[in-house]
């Protein structure tokens, strides 16, 4: 089953809302092996969408293809009003600046301070030494980075080397770096993986509160069903390279999602 490509805003009844992401006829293969085969879906602004599926179902590949960290094989990607596949290298950089990513591995630069890592987020709109290290950053950039750190509750650790923090704190720093980017759309690739249950929940709650607070759109992958149910408005399930599940989270429960994982069939 493939999802409808034009989402409706639930609060507005029949009012059509321009989607922030439209994926149509999307195909990705690696050396002839088909991983994603004709995906069609769309995401409305301000929506938190969970992408679920078994390991190897192509969830992370899809996320990376959306910003062309991996090149798609075929199909259409319209994101934030841009035809992603048609972007030139320069335009692609500018486009990526609008999309924040929270990775499974936080991917921070280990030997640098927390503040320097957060300031790296400004490289979406500022280049040169001012965006490389906190010591060279202008006062307004340092101030904004401190605000982002404050938002994730780590302002007091700004001078600490990032690799001396716990896994949960590092993930918070990664979220602060993403905030520094001032994104319009957030992609989150298992941000709760490798974190203990409580920390994972805190990170997910923080992410969702930011999305709600700033009116951003979120497409996230999580293997934790309770997080999928608690922190999303809509659930998309990937199986056999296609969208095999698409339903509002209010209509889903843990048992039906478990059945989807067990059988890889529409719940």
């Amino acid at each position: 089953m493939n999802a409808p490509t034009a989402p409706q805003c639930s609060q507005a009844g029949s009012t059509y809302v321009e989607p922030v992401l439209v994926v149509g006829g999307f195909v990705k293969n690696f050396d002839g092996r088909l991983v994603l085969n004709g995906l069609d879906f769309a995401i409305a602004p301000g929506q938190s969408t969970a992408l679920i599926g078994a390991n190897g179902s192509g969830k992370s590949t899809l996320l990376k293809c959306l910003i062309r960290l991996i090149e798609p094989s075929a199909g259409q990607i319209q994101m934030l009003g841009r035809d992603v596949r048609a972007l030139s290298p320069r335009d692609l950089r500018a486009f990526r600046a609008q999309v924040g990513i929270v990775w499974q591995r936080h991917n921070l630069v280990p030997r640098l301070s927390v503040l320097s890592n957060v300031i790296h987020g400004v490289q979406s709109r500022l280049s040169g030494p001012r965006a490389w290290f906190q010591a060279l950053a202008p006062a307004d950039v340092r101030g904004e980075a401190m605000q982002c750190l404050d938002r994730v509750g780590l302002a007091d650790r700004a001078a600490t080397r990032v690799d001396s923090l716990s896994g949960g704190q590092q993930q918070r720093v990664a979220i602060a770096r993403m905030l520094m980017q001032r994104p319009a759309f957030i992609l989150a690739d298992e941000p709760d993986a490798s974190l203990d249950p409580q920390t994972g929940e805190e990170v997910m709650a923080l992410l969702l509160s930011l999305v709600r607070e700033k009116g951003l759109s979120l497409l996230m992958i999580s293997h934790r069903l309770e997080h999928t149910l608690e922190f999303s408005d809509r659930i998309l399930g990937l199986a056999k390279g296609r969208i095999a599940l698409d339903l509002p989270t209010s209509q889903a429960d843990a048992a039906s999602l478990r059945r989807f994982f067990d059988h890889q069939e529409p719940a």
Partner: protein
Amino acid sequence: MTTLSVSAVISPPPRFSHRSLSEYVGILLVLGLVTSSLMATAPALDKLSRGAARLFAPSGMLTQMFPPDFSRIIPIGWKLLETLQMAVAGCFLGLLLAIPFAILATDRLSPHPWVRNVARAVIALFRTVPDLIWAIIFIIIVGLGPAAGVMAIMVDKIGFAGRFFAEAMEESDAGPQDALRAIGANRLGTIVSAVFPACLPSFTATSLFALEKSVRGSAALGLVGAGGIGVDLKVAFDLFNYDEALAIILMMLALVITVEQGSGWIRKKLI
């Protein structure tokens, strides 16, 4: 106490893994190469003992070296300082230029495979040609003196550090680089913000080894006229002033040990 019957225990694997015929041929070839090389070039023991006896004879070189003559310690000290300066200047320039060469030679960071291949070839060329040959080439270009030595050390260090810097960058974690690329950072931003900090320990270790190597090498460069203490050492040997030669060698040894100890201390502090 429970005992296991022999039949219940799974037999261990053979002590030596089975090798194919081609592997045996390879081992024989290596052994043959080592043996023939030793036979063709290594000195005969009787020749070695006769020569060593000459060295220790009353008129022999070693006997004449003692006691070392430190009467020219001030001018030798200045020359030693020049040697150190040559090493530091050449090493600094070499390390600085090695960074762009290394970036261009790295699979992940090079803008194009052709550029990468050319950069790798240049680094290999710089590394393959001995520094004494580079010194002779630069003496032709800039004349006798320390400038030629500095240039020779610089080129040698581009070859030495370029290779190790490139390897360090190749092995660095791709995650932070991907994250910055995904943010929209440009190539230079990604390299400076993510690659350099990750490679800093390796860069530091390589740079300190390069400095030690430069100090040792710069003394030899004087032998071909490229400045430094090597000139004085050559003159001392040419004029049979073996006691002064020993004084120079001891002072060089003190310099090299000081630099090695210093770089070891820095390495411990920084890495």
